[in-house]
């Protein structure tokens, strides 16, 4: 078990700075998910921790020890790659025990470890097979077993589920949560999928353009997004964002925070619009509603309206968020927040 600290790290590839002066602390034993759009630097950060692409400047500390000069194999970390990176010429058994052999673990201990780990991940019957004869899900398990068997203090995972089909992905997600609970080690997980981040993380670190946008637990990230980017990245569909009349300030509300009705209702935010699209997903229905220049995505648990129907949107006061000119969220207790609420009320009445 170990905590990870990144202190003032910078990473430059061919004169292009991907990460600049970044600080991050990953708590011991937590499931931390690094999430963000592609090219945001999340994988770079992970590879920095692994030591595969060391930082250009700054330092990486694992368990308080500076590992900048420690090679990847001696950092006590294990990594699961996006394409699994299984050794294709070795059998499943050889794949799993390769790291143990290199670390000088005795033969009897190796056999014991490999057999116990392989039954944990359900590969016991496949130990003498070549990876090419395994399915995608089984290869994923080989990669996991290979990481687990070394009993690392840190687990690094680089989009490990992105090559699996949707159903298997959901199943593996649950297995990973259980695995984390059982092992209790530090997990650092990289993904571009906010659903994966929300469902598995203890802490989400949201990144964009090499900078951390917000670092919080999933529920806080969802309820109190620190800026417009976070508000729109987390949640499907993303938060509806609109501009207040006179300029820079933006308001927002989640798709499920709005009510739809066929006659006007009294609420702080109201708007009249026409349904453009309707997505019926079973337990909920998502409408796209056009109101003047603005389009809103509204999520309803009932399926009452049809395309081209005219409806009224209403959002209550406590569901509204405001973002200042710098796109940073305004606290709901601040005077600015109250002021903008009144502005928005005026805008809707006017």
């Amino acid at each position, binding site marked *: 078990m170990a905590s990870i600290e990144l202190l003032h790290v910078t990473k430059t590839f061919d004169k292009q700075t991907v990460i600049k002066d970044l600080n991050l602390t990953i708590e011991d034993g937590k499931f931390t998910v690094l999430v963000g759009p592609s090219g945001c630097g999340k994988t770079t950060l992970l590879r920095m921790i692994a030591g*595969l692409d060391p930082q250009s400047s700054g330092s990486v500390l694992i368990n308080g020890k500076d590992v900048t000069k420690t*090679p*990847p*194999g001696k950092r006590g*970390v294990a*990594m699961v*790659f996006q394409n699994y*990176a299984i050794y294709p010429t070795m059998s499943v058994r050889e794949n799993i025990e390769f*790291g143990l052999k*290199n670390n000088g673990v005795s033969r009897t201990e190796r056999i014991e470890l490999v057999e116990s780990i392989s039954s944990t991940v359900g590969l016991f019957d496949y130990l003498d097979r070549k990876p090419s004869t395994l399915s995608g899900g089984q290869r994923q398990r080989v990669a996991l077993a290979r990481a687990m068997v070394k009993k690392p203090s840190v687990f690094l995972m680089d989009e490990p589920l992105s090559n699996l089909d949707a159903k298997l992905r959901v199943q593996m997600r649950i297995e990973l949560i259980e695995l984390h609970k059982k092992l209790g080690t530090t997990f650092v997980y990289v993904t571009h999928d906010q659903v994966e981040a929300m469902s598995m993380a203890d802490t989400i670190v949201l990144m964009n353009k090499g900078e951390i946008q917000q670092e919080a637990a999933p529920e806080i990230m969802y309820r109190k997004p620190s800026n417009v980017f976070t508000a729109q990245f987390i949640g499907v569909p993303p938060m509806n964002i609109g501009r207040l009349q006179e300029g820079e300030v933006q308001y927002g509300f989640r798709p499920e925070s709005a009510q739809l009705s066929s006659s006007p209702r009294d609420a702080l935010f109201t708007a009249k619009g026409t349904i453009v699209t309707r997505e019926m997903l079973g337990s909920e229905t998502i409408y796209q509603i056009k109101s003047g220049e603005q389009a809103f995505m509204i999520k309803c648990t009932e399926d009452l309206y049809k395309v081209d129907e005219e409806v009224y949107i209403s959002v209550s006061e406590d569901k509204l968020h405001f973002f200042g000119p710098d796109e940073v969220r305004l606290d709901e207790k601040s005077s600015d927040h109250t002021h903008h609420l009144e502005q928005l009320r005026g805008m809707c009445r006017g």
Partner: protein
Amino acid sequence: MDKKRLVELLRPYLMILPAMVGIFTFVVYPIMYLGYLSLYDYNLMNKAKSKFIGLDNFIEIFSRGDFYKSLTNTALYTAGVVLVTLLISLVIAVWLSKNSKFNAFVQAGIFMPHIVSIVSIALVWLWMMEPSLGFLNYLLKAVGMQPLQWLQSSKTALMSIIIVSVWQGIGYYVLIIVAALQSISPSIYEAAALDNANKFKVFYKITLPMISPQLFFILVIMTIGSFKVFDTVKVMTSGGPNNATNTLVYYIYEHRTTNIGYASATGMVLLVIIALLTFVYFRLLSKRVHYQ
């Protein structure tokens, strides 16, 4: 209705007919004819005087010392060329496997001999290996070493020919191995780094098995090619001195006019040797070759 079925039945055979005609004319027939000739005391001047002598030609082959001499020469030449070329190509390929402009330039340079005619190459090396005025002895003397007789001594002649063949062949095999090395996913090496594997272990546990299909291919192709060596020998030594570089194909060539039946029989023996060798390779090594 019946006619239609007949067409259906014949169509596949009609489709492969052109290819089969080619194969029969240029592959099967010459080999059969070679076998036919090998059973005769064949007279090139007067066909009527040719005599069927059964296996006498083969009996003669295996009782003559000069055949064993050229067989040994060919085996030594093949072993030398195959081992040295594989080893050097592998080392150079590993060195050049990183994609950079400098490496591409070096690779192109190493490949150059392959596109030059072997006759020109052999002639140039012939001059370079000239004992009193040649460049190689000049170099040896310059670094204070004893000059060699190269092609003019039966001790060094075979080695000299091996050097030329290796020099000519390396570029092509480096190209194949570099391509194989570059096709290995870098994440496998990263996984190995995280598994704390040292460089030596990475090479023989990951790199070598990953390129084994290409190495096996090179081994087979090069063995067959080396067993059939002719042009280098013809230009540089004509089998001499004192039969020190007489190889099987050159041996066949020497008998082409005096005794075509005997030459054909030797050709059949060469065919069998190469077939056996290839078979043995597949039996011994195919389990160690990893195909994706």
